[in-house]
């Protein structure tokens, strides 16, 4: 019975090819828009998420909000280094390693410096840190080795180059083992990092890392501006933030003097933004689907009027209310379902083209496709109900009188 009803529906859709196609167009465009827009949004959110995850594993970032300059003089001139409130010493930073749950601590003294190799010079970021910086920040080595604990302890004038800085200073040549100057002081290059690309628009490859013990004298400062910590596990992050918060409060006096951010916080913020974006885009596309549904309803109403006599004949022959109802419902479902399938095809094609044109990843999601298809069927059902019940409710005598 159902397969015959479907056959009848296909037949009457096929009998009016052009009209059926135009009717479906609304649904086709709606579904295609849902697929393409959500695909774009998902692609964007996936690439942002992978950038954030690339920053490090189970990363916690502490930043102090005080400019470090002023403290440097008093620190170097006084016998006992006494920092004004709001600043951290390297030893304080390193002591965070004893907090249970912390896997590694990488304190960073950051500044800018002029780097020179022969006649070439460039100004870029200088990072004074320790051996933990590489694992905590998830860097791979391209050549040589990273800073070792011994380099820190012995105040060795050794430098590790970010991949971009290595190219700027040494071109195609291998920098490892060569010497360079940092603000005029000679250093030996011991390693080059593998490129990591940019995160949130910032290059992560344009800097030089040296032991923090050496950076103190090069930058003329003793305070730590940023501490990167990695937690032992992602589950440990939540309890850790409370402990770290307490410790930093006693050291720095006020919560206004520092910020503590975890990777999962950044991720969840971004996720909520991209989820909102997906919902907004999906909603806009969904509206066009509903408009498509109204188009179907319109044509189905016309169709019921045109086929009043056919309905009368079918009823006279014994078709029940339900039989006529299901005939027209199946027809509008077939229209919207076909539209949905064509829309999925078109949307996927648009996603591919957009992905190539914009150079971004467009994530096709079977769930979205299925959802869009189900939604278009739902639209066909809802907007088919009224015309179908109108057809089914026709009185056979009245319907037969129409020519």
């Amino acid at each position, binding site marked *: 019975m159902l397969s015959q009803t479907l056959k009848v529906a296909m037949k*009457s859709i096929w009998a009016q090819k052009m009209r059926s196609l135009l009717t479906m167009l609304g649904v086709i465009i709606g579904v295609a828009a849902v697929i393409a827009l959500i695909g774009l949004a998902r692609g964007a959110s996936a690439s942002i998420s992978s950038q954030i995850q690339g920053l490090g594993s189970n990363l916690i970032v502490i930043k102090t909000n005080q400019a470090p300059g002023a403290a440097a003089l008093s620190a170097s001139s006084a016998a006992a280094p006494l920092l004004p409130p709001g600043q951290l010493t390297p030893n304080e930073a390193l002591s965070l390693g004893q907090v249970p749950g912390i896997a590694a601590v990488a304190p960073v003294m950051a500044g800018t410096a002029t780097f020179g190799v022969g006649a070439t010079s460039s100004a870029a970021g200088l990072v004074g840190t320790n051996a933990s910086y590489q694992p905590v920040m998830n860097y791979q080595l391209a050549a040589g080795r990273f800073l070792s604990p011994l380099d820190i302890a012995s105040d060795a004038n050794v430098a590790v180059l970010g991949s971009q800085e290595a190219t700027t200073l040494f071109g195609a040549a291998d920098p490892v083992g060569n010497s360079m100057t940092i603000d005029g002081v000679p250093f030996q290059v011991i390693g080059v990092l593998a490129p990591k690309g940019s995160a949130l628009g910032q290059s992560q490859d344009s800097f030089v890392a040296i032991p923090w013990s050496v950076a103190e004298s090069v930058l003329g400062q003793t305070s730590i501006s940023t501490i990167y910590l990695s937690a032992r596990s992602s589950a440990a992050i939540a309890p850790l933030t409370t402990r770290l918060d307490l410790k930093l409060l006693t050291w720095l006096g006020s919560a206004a003097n520092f910020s503590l951010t975890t990777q999962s916080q950044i991720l969840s913020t971004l996720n909520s933004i991209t989820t909102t974006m997906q919902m907004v885009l999906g909603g806009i596309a969904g509206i066009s689907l509903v408009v498509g549904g109204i188009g179907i309803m319109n044509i189905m109403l016309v169709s019921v009027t045109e086929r009043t006599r056919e309905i009368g004949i079918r009823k006279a022959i014994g078709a029940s209310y339900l039989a006529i109802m299901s005939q027209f419902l199946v027809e509008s479902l077939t229209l919207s379902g076909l539209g949905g399938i064509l829309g999925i095809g078109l949307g996927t094609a648009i996603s591919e083209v957009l992905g190539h044109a914009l150079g971004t990843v467009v994530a096709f999601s079977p769930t979205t496709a299925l959802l869009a298809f189900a939604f278009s069927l739902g639209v066909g059902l809802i907007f088919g109900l009224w015309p179908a019940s109108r057809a089914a409710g026709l009185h056979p005598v009245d319907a037969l009188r129409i020519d």
Partner: protein
Amino acid sequence: MPLIELQAVEKSYKMGTQTLHVLKGVSLAINQGDYVAIVGPSGSGKSTLMHILGCLDIPAPGRYVLAGQDVSKLKEARLAPIRRQHIGFVFQSFNLLGTLNAQENVALPLLYQGVNGRRQRERAKDALSLVGLGDRLHHRPNQLSGGQQQRVAIARAIVADPPVILADEPTGNLDSQSGQDLLQIFSGLNQAGRTLVVITHDAEVARHAKRVIEIRDGRIVGDREVSHA
């Protein structure tokens, strides 16, 4: 017990402020195996009578008992299965569906009875063979002559084996030769035991029937047996 029994059937329509009394108390009984022609001029109420006999409409007031069942108070939803089981229609304008071929048209009543697809095709083919169109199964109505289309309609009316065949001006759109052929088929069907009720103003049709009921201004004015010498 008669197959069809009408008791004091009336029917009126509201036309704006006026009420039009179309049937003014019609009582009749038709037995199984009968071949009845209902004749009358246009406007006499015979079309309305045919709608009521065919369970397309209900009398108000009045009583209609079909095959032992009182159908005069049934709602449309309950009338559809009655039509499906008891009535086969033949219309003046054939009323075939243009998008379906002859076999599919004939199979329609079986479709609504829930007969499976293969049985539908077999029985439709048998019914078409019975009216001499066994070689036209896959022709569309527009590929058939008027007489052939009406024979397809007859096949559709008998395919589900209903006790009553109800025909409304069946020869109205046919040339005289096709009309003759059709009456031959009707006589054959009646001889095979089927009950036929034909509404017509064609005297030739009435001559073939066993009984002629004459209707005028919503009342039965004549009811006579026809002798076939």
